């Protein structure tokens, strides 16, 4: 099935219903994709280009109808596309070229009216994660707790087995929960048990 139909005078319009379905996915997933992309690069143009390319490609054929988990499909293709674009942009700078991708959590100062305790809690945990975990662990943590993905979904994004995904998360969380320094800091907070 073609996803386009002839409009007039060589102008094409895309199949409306399909476009509308994609639009609702786009609008619900935009924030998640953007903040996920922010963890890879501070270059907003690259992130926007990657989002655009993912949806343009989806629009050009109906393959998405055969995909059962469209949200995860979008995440996987977004990550691939973003990494491709970042590496492409770094090619001009030979010294800066990297093969292994760096996923660094960037915890910004919060300007919202959120309560003080939560702010402190967040900074304690994020400081710990930045110091004591690898970028891969941080990415799993992000996918699991920010986006609420399952191990199966995460394994598809990171291209590792479900088992190693589970093991990695297990190690990270167990290690965190047994870090005496961290626990001591957390204990001082009232929020945690309220």
């Amino acid at each position, binding site marked *: 099935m073609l996803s*386009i*139909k*002839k*409009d*007039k*005078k*060589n*102008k*094409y*319009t*895309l199949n*409306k*219903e399909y*476009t*509308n379905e994609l*639009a*609702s996915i*786009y*609008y619900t997933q*935009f*924030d998640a994709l*953007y*903040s996920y992309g922010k963890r890879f690069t501070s270059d907003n143009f690259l992130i926007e280009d990657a*989002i*655009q390319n993912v*949806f*343009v490609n989806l*629009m*050009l054929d109906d393959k998405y109808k055969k995909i059962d988990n469209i949200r995860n499909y979008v995440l996987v293709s977004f990550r691939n596309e973003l990494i491709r674009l970042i590496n492409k942009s770094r090619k001009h700078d030979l010294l800066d070229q990297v093969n292994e991708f760096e996923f660094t*959590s960037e*915890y*910004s100062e*919060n300007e919202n009216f*959120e309560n003080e305790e*939560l702010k402190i*809690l*967040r900074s*304690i*945990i*994020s400081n710990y994660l930045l110091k004591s975990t690898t970028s891969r662990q941080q990415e799993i*943590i992000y996918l*699991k*707790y*920010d*986006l*609420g*993905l*399952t*191990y199966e979904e995460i394994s598809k994004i990171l291209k590792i087995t479900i088992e190693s995904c589970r093991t990695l998360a*297990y190690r990270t*969380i*167990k290690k965190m*929960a*047994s870090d005496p320094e961290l*626990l001591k800091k*957390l*204990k001082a907070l009232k*929020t*945690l*048990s309220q």
Partner: protein
Amino acid sequence: MKTENWNFITDLLLDDSFTSNVTDPSLSHQYVEALKKEHPDKEKEIVMALNTMKGIKSEDKSYSMEHKRAMWDKITEKAALTNKKRRKSIALFVSIAATVLLIIGLGISSVFYFTGNEKIEQYALNLSSDISTPGLILSDGRQLSIQGEQPTITYSEDGSKLIIDGSLKVQKTTSREDVYNQLIAPYGKTINLTLSDGTRVWVSSGSRLIYPPSFNRKVREIYLDGEAYFEVASVKNKPFIVKTEKMDTKVLGTKFYVQAHAKDDMYSTLLLEGKVVLSEKKSKSHHEVSLKPGQQGYVNQNQNKIRINEVENPENKISWIHGYFRLENERLDLLLKRIAKYYNVKITLPESLTPMVISGKLDLKENPEIVLNDIAVLANLELTQKEKIYFFKKNEMIIN
């Protein structure tokens, strides 16, 4: 805190169903309550796990709707362009086929035209035409407001779903023919509407458009009270008719601009592409004319005969769909008339200034004052305002 507690907490944190349920705002509350019931002695740990998750999670960020919408427009544009390149060879064939269809279709459509019933006009008359409450009324009577600087509304093919400024709405649809939606564009804004058949309509400020969510009849009929620009998608054997109180425009697939101002008794259609047939309907003779691109057919006060005007640069007349007026030696008084209509404001101009012509590009901002100030600067005039009426006069200051 004891280590035992943390075992339960980490178990929760590592559990798929816990993390995916808790991160979904629509499920979170219910899930947590059920969990507390299941483990009444572990309530403290459950709360701790939730708070730890809050700590791990970075703050929620959301990006402006406007930004998202602009990007989505880019995506659809890019997809359409890529498609065009890919299918160039098919394009030629389809293009020829469509031309043939248009010619055949125009012959057939005149038969439909006079047999079409007047249901939509009846509906339009019965419905409140109160322009002061702009928005969209769905077939089930729900009223939706329209926000955003450049609002867009898109219907799905069956008319049951529509996206307003990016948010999805669902309405019940039936195969009944007399179900309509009514759209009233707020003053100072142009609404970009895509109907269920793919036809695009730019509904101008303060105008009212009535249309069925999906076109189930043999003829696609819509009713206009005000101004709109149309890019009609061609559909085999289904002519498209823009009805107004005094004059109808019938087409198959083409671009044209309709003005229907009952208050001023002024009705016109400007054709940009394709072919349309106009028919006047107040007199007994039902005068009919067909237009060529660049021609504007109109009926004026107390007249029943359609006259034709040749329009130079017709694209300039519809530049408002992109949010600006393109002016080429436009008479100042006529321009101010258009602006007064667009923003629903009163503007006066001394007679001595009416022969003045003005050229340039005028951005249609939401606030009429900014626009009028731009004109004042462009024409070297002085603008004053008194109780919602704007006055233009000659600039007294002499600049050397």
